[in-house]
């Protein structure tokens, strides 16, 4: 594999949307997701000297982002733990209702279930896209998610239309297999 060089000037345009989508499916907060993506790029820049060029830029940035997301959850959990106010439902004499019914979300509600399922599916798909070769992933995302036209993508990557369709076809086959093992077999 040829040695990969980092081009931080192009990070936002190349990987911004993908990393943002990857983050938002895990943290569920647009502002937090933007902060985490931005922190990832800054951390990448800071540790650029440690990049050995043995993986692609995207894989390297995703590994940094994953660590940032874990840190985010660690921090928020510890804050939550410190600020937690312990209340006893039974101490309040005015409330005689069934606390289980009032406190727990109704997971049988199809909307809630669907939402959770969609979120998990999004995470599984993002993981599958992350496992594709970089060129396949970029072209697949540009065509399928960004909905760019064939000509624009061909020009950007200097490939013919038939090359593009072969790449998209292979990417889709890999993603279908990956989703099948990660998601549909579980269901």
């Amino acid at each position, binding site marked *: 594999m040829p040695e990969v060089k980092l081009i*931080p*000037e192009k*990070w*936002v*345009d190349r990987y*911004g*949307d993908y990393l*943002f*989508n990857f983050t*938002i499916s895990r943290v569920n907060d*647009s502002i937090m997701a*933007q902060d985490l*993506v*931005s922190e990832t*790029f*800054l951390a990448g*820049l*800071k540790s650029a000297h440690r990049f050995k060029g043995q993986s692609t830029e995207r894989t390297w940035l995703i590994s940094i982002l994953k660590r940032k997301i874990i840190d985010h959850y660690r921090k928020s959990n510890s804050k939550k733990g410190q600020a937690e106010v312990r209340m006893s439902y039974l101490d309040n004499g005015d409330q005689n209702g069934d606390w289980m019914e009032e406190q727990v979300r109704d997971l049988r509600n199809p909307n809630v279930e669907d939402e959770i399922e*969609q979120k998990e*599916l*999004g995470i599984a*798909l993002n993981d599958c896209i992350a496992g594709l070769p970089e060129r396949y992933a970029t072209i697949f995302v540009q*065509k*399928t*998610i*960004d909905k760019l036209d*064939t000509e624009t993508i061909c020009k950007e990557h200097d490939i013919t239309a038939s090359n593009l*369709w*072969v790449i*998209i*076809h292979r990417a*889709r086959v890999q*993603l*279908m297999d990956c*989703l099948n093992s990660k998601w549909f077999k579980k269901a």
Partner: protein
Amino acid sequence: MGRFFISCDEASILSTRDQYNDLSPKEKFRQKLHHGHCLGCRSFDKKSRLFSRTMNSLGWIKLSKSQKKAIKQKLQEAMKK
């Protein structure tokens, strides 16, 4: 007159292109003709459609222009240091 019968490799690429509405009427006809006698390609086409439906059902969220600009600005400032 062009070739009407195509191989399975060609048919599967046509199936993929069909998911992006990229087929000409002639190519659609060739694809249908192939699917008429090839169970494997018909099954692949079904899977491919299911995959497209799954992809389309997910809400893909992108960074807005202003968000990208803000991140780029931070990155450029850090690069100057």
